[in-house]
């Protein structure tokens, strides 16, 4: 069990998403940065799909009732455990009664907190993901609030210990990102010049950027004739271009269907970069073909396997840079003691 001392700007319970109900108009939701979310679960020894907390821009503060392994990944929100800095992309033990506090994101946009066992909220349509627009899933269908109490489940599977993720698996979040795009399904509704503009222009992420989608600003993309289509389904990463000519990239909380022409879709392994981008960051698009896109997907999956292997190889050694935390009770008061190697 743990308590929300301060929820931060916008923190929700998320898992892999509510797949299987888009036929009924139910958006998928789920962790918007799949990579950081999955790695957090791996570090925490959880099964894939265990629910975690997703924080946005400004993180929250959490008090833990029981000693427990937790992992943090994604945006660097300057996490501190009872005032002592803890490394990002790491797993560590939070002693009973301790407080884990996140600040604002100094790099990236969304941070994930996975607790060993997973966050236990009721499953709604087979998922614990929060979809706030319809008040579905998560904790009462809403973002976390001060004094909320969350239970921990039993979605752990691997015996892991406190450690920091190997540097090779830690992405760096820049203010200029490049996203690979597969054209379709309505790229034929745009002029050749428009497609050229799309792939050579630089776009800026506008303030209208949330879990539903990111509206961009930049060079206008013109349609051959009209911008509207007979509504069809919106895939994850779909790039809609309404009549105003600036693209909107559809993300986790996207509506299942839409009525604007879609020039293409950002390939899913690249959505981690967009999920960590903030208003004002710049985006360029790069055209790729199907074979390269599938290769990128395969690489992403191989990375998870290799991370899992590396964590199990590291199981008893921990990491020299990770502080070890001990719980010491003195006169009935629990203190957390941090032990670091002094080089």
């Amino acid at each position: 069990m743990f308590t929300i001392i301060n929820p931060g700007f916008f923190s929700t319970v998320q898992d892999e998403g509510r797949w299987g109900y888009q036929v009924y108009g139910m958006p998928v939701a789920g962790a918007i940065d799949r990579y950081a979310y999955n790695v957090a679960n791996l570090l925490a020894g959880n099964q894939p799909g265990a629910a975690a907390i997703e924080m946005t821009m400004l993180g929250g503060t959490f008090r833990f009732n029981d000693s427990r392994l937790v992992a943090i990944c994604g945006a660097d929100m300057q996490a501190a455990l009872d005032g002592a800095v803890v490394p990002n992309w790491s797993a560590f033990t939070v002693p009973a009664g301790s407080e884990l506090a996140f600040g604002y994101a100094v790099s990236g946009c969304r941070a994930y907190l996975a607790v060993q066992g997973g966050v236990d909220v009721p499953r709604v349509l087979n998922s614990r993901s929060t979809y706030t627009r319809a008040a579905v899933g998560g904790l009462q269908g809403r973002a976390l609030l001060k004094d909320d109490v969350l239970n921990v489940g039993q979605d752990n599977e691997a015996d892991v210990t406190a450690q920091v993720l190997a540097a090779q698996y830690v992405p760096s979040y820049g203010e200029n990102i490049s996203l690979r795009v597969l054209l379709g399904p309505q790229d034929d509704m745009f002029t050749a010049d428009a497609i050229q503009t799309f792939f050579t222009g630089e776009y800026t992420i506008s303030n209208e950027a949330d879990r539903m989608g990111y509206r961009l600003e930049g060079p206008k993309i013109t349609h051959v004739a009209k911008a509207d289509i007979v509504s069809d389904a919106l895939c994850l990463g779909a790039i809609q271009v309404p009549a105003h000519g600036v693209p909107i990239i559809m993300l986790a909380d996207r509506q299942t269907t839409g009525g604007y022409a879609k020039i293409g879709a950002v390939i899913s392994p690249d959505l981690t970069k967009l999920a960590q981008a903030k208003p004002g960051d710049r985006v360029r698009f790069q055209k790729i073909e199907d074979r390269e896109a599938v290769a990128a997907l395969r690489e992403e999956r191989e990375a998870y396997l290799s991370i899992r292997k590396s964590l199990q190889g590291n199981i008893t050694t921990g990491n020299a840079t990770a502080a070890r935390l001990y719980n010491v009770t003195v006169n009935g008061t629990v203190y957390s003691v941090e032990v670091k190697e002094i080089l």
Partner: protein
Amino acid sequence: MMEAKFLHAGEQGLVVEFGADISNETNAKVHWLAKELAQRSDLAIREIIPTYRSLLVYFDAVEISREHLCHAIKKIMAEERGVQGGQAQRSAKVIHIPVCYGGEFGPDLVFVAEHNDISPEEVIRIHTSTPYLVFMLGFTPGFPYLGGMSDKIATPRLDKPRVRIPAGSVGIAGSQTGFYPIESPGGWQLIGRTPIKAFHAESAHPFLFAAGDYLQFKSVSMEAFQEIRAQVDAGSYIPEVTMLQGG
């Protein structure tokens, strides 16, 4: 021979598009293929989203190649004979939707009547006279895109959309009709409200109807509305469902 376009929607999305129109014929092909593919566990399909005139098939692109999947779908289509003819029109479910028309629930009923030079009673009579096909669901959980409304009550959207439309509101937008399952913004002309919930997350059957079903609206009094609402809240309301025989 059934024709379709095979288009990309990301590396794991395949769009099978049967046309660019809104028609029962095109939509019947969509739902036919969705049903066929739902029975195939060998194609690494994760989810299928049927819409007016196309399907989005999410598949695991590492498990199966796009070429292989397209080939399998073309084979299914080549072997099909009946869907384009009348005999493919199977019997369909009709879900009856009670609606309290006009008054505070239908603030635009008088406008819809005046716009079409008929009385409000005539609008209600026409709106309840025929079952509407659910072409697809989208926009919000459980929101039906319906086909088949008479042009005699067609009315353009509001110039300025409302910020909040209560759940259950029944409206008209152009020649479309439908109702809002959850509170949302929207620009439809509101003619009434239903007490039933098209989407109820906690229920054993969270969605009242599916694409391919029909909805038939039925005019009820305010008293009946309140009575049904109480049953819906208690979880004891059972909607009336009949069968529409096709062919």
